[in-house]
Structures are given as C-alpha cells and as structure tokens.
C-alpha cells in the first residue's frame, strides 16, 4: 500500500489526484493506478514499460533505484511522487 502523488504539470493532460493504492513494489503500485486510469500509463512509462527518460519517481524522498523494472519495495507508509526530471535549465 502506498500513497501516490503526481506532478501538477501532468494534471492538464490527465486528471490524477493523490491516491492510496495497494502494491508491494513501485511497479505494482503504479499498475494499480493505471488500472483506475489507463490513459496515465503512456505519460509515465515508455513502450518498454520502463520509466520515461525525463520522468523521475521519488520513493520516500529518494529517486527510485530501478527505473526499468520499478522493483523498489513499498510498505504502508511509503509515499511516491511521480515528477518531471529537471531539464531545460
């Protein structure tokens, strides 16, 4: 179980209010979000289901270690922030 918050810049494309969803890993948590809102997937993940190059996911305040499989473990106190990676100055 984790609370997931999405960058405000994504809200103009897909409405994604903060949500608490089940899951043992970042991947499972995100899949639970995408089950509620399928359109969100393509904004966060690429065709290979890896995190998009210019996106970053913070997991209890730290960028996730596994950007490909998103295997970082979560527990009931985990907060996940899906953000844009800094780019463009």
């Amino acid at each position, binding site marked *: 179980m984790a609370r997931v918050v999405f960058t405000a*810049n*994504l809200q103009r*494309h897909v409405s994604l209010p903060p949500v608490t969803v089940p899951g043992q890993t970042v991947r499972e948590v995100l899949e639970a979000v995408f089950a509620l809102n399928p*359109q969100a997937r*393509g*904004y*966060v993940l*690429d*065709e*290979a289901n890896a995190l*998009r190059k*210019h*996106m970053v996911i913070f997991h209890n305040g730290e960028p996730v270690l596994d950007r490909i499989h998103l295997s970082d473990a979560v527990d009931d106190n985990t907060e996940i922030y899906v953000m*844009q*990676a800094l*780019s*463009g100055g």
Partner: protein
Amino acid sequence: MDRRILVATRKGLFTVVRESDRWKVADAAFLGDNLSLVGYDPRTGAIYASIHHGHFGVKLQRSEDGGATWREIATPAYPQDIVESPPMIDDFRKTAIPWSVQLIWAFEAGGRDEPGVIWLGTIPGGLFRSSDCGESWELNRPLLDRQREAKWTGGGYDFPGLHSICVDPRDSQCITVAISTGGVWQTRDGGQSWCVASHGLRAEYMPPDQAYNPLVQDAHAMVQCAANPDRLWIQHHNGVFRSVDQATSWQEITTVQPSVFGFAIAVHPHDAETAWTVPAVKDEKRYPVDGRVVVARTRNGGVSFETLTEGLPQGHAYDLTYRHGLAVDSTGEWLTFGSTTGSLWVSEDQGNRWQNVSTHLPPIHCVKFIE
C-alpha cells in the same frame, strides 16, 4: 470552410486566416507545447496534431470541428514483441536504435476508397496505419523487416526517420515513402511488400563507389503531383531529384539557384513541371545563401529555376525552412512557408509575391492549408 493555414511550432499550434487582403494569426492552441506536425484529412475535415511532450512522450490529438476542440487519441507504439526483440543497430553509428516512438514525422490520409485510413511515419523509422481515424495503430511489419536488412541510419536525428508518405490518388494500395536516411521505398499492395525505389539518387556524403547505393540516400522531403502521380520530386541532402516514372528511377536536377540544398519541396497539384524549394547554404551551414531568403521555382520540370524574392528579406536573414515548413494549396496558387526563426510568409500567386505574416512566431516545424 474558408481556407486557413495551420502552423505547428515549437510552442503551439497557430491558425492563420485571411482578412481584408491581409493574413494574420487568429488563434493559438496547445500554447507552450512542442508540435512536430499537423495533419489534415480532406475526406473528413479532421485535423491531427502531434505533440512532443519532452517529459511525457509523444501524443496525438484530433479535432473534428476545425480546431475548436481537441481530443487525445491513440499514440502509435511498437508492439511488445518488437520491443522485446534485439535492437537494430545504426550502421553508421553502431548504436542501438530504440523501439520507442520518439517523434511523429509524417502524416498522410489514405485513399478516397479507404475511409478512416491514416498513415504515420515516425522516428525511429516506423510506418503505422490506422483504419479508424487514429483510435488505434498498427505497425507495418513488412517495411520494418526490410529496414532490418537495409540498415537505415540516422540523418539529422540520431535515429532513422520516415518523413514523407505519398499515397497514389489513382490507387491507394500504391504508397511511396522516404526515409532519412534509408532511401525511398514503395508498395503496390497496400504495405504487404516493399521494394526500394531510390535508384538514381546520389549521395555526395558517401565514398564514390557507394554514391548511388539506393539504400543510403538521405531524402529530406518527397512530394507527388496529385494530377500526375507518376511525377515525384525530392529535396535530397545534396540536391533536387525528379522522377517521371513513379519512382522507378530518379534524375538529378542541378539547376536550382542559389543552392541545391534545402529541406522542403512542393509540387503544383495540377502541373507536375512546377515545383518550389527553399534553398539554403549546403550543408554544414544551414542558412539562406548570403542571408537572403528566397524561394526557387521551376515551371519546366527543373530545366531552369527562377529565384523569387519579392516580399522576402534580402539581407541578414537567417531563416531556415524545415522539411514540412512549405505547403501549396489544392489550387496550386497559394503557398506558405515558415522558418526556424519564427517567420511566416504567404503567396497568393505561386510565389511571385510574398506577404509576411509574422516574424515572431516560435520555430516553425510544419505548415498546412486547411480547405
């Protein structure tokens, strides 16, 4: 609907209209977003906008009410079995080409007998077909298989890209596409099989014995005459080429002044002998020759070209026009072109005189007449 011009830019989609003999920017959509392309389906009047969100990836939007409202539709994507297959290797760079759509680079509506069919070209070089106006997309696998053999490579971009799609108006199963860099390819059976169709193109950037290798040709843009589809024109990396036999062979045109280099080309829809280019200094210095913006026009199939300047800046102008930055309307009378420095011009007399619409737009990627 009145004729309008849609201008896809680095920072939004702009609508340009004619009012009291003047053209002006009338509206903006997707402000701040990077639009790689705008497409128009004359069969339905639908407009398609390809948006390249730096963070969120490539997305497609469609408007069925002339641009008043938009709806996100499906984005073409490589299928999972392709994504999981070994990467293709760029033959020049020896780097892996990702199975990930980085940019939508070509849009073409299918034939009149194929309602709902839309073709898209992408970077990396994929060709995608929709049979439902973009609600879903299918990768053309036969062309991808040919790509694996033919070793397409990146040109201006790191990865090869399919930028031009010509659907023969006489036969919608005959489709000719051009790749930077990978030459010209043609299908006569709606995409089930493909053959290379770039014989006669010449690549100055290759060793001499490979200059005429049809697989390494860097076509920048390719257009087909609507009234005489056997006639096609290419603005190539190092020259202009014309085909009079439906891309079976190509002849080099060396008479373009002030330069044979450029990205964009347009052909008159009713007169295959008339074509326009927007020349620039070749090829490592990409700005107008002598800082003078000009359009080159031939009326005799490339035997000779006129240099059109009236209304265009003739000193210290550094506008470069990209491959989708020049368009002609369905009458062949009106033209428009836009530049990387945000200038836009319109002509109502085949390029004899040009009216400047703006010099302050964002960098222009694509212009399109909506009729």
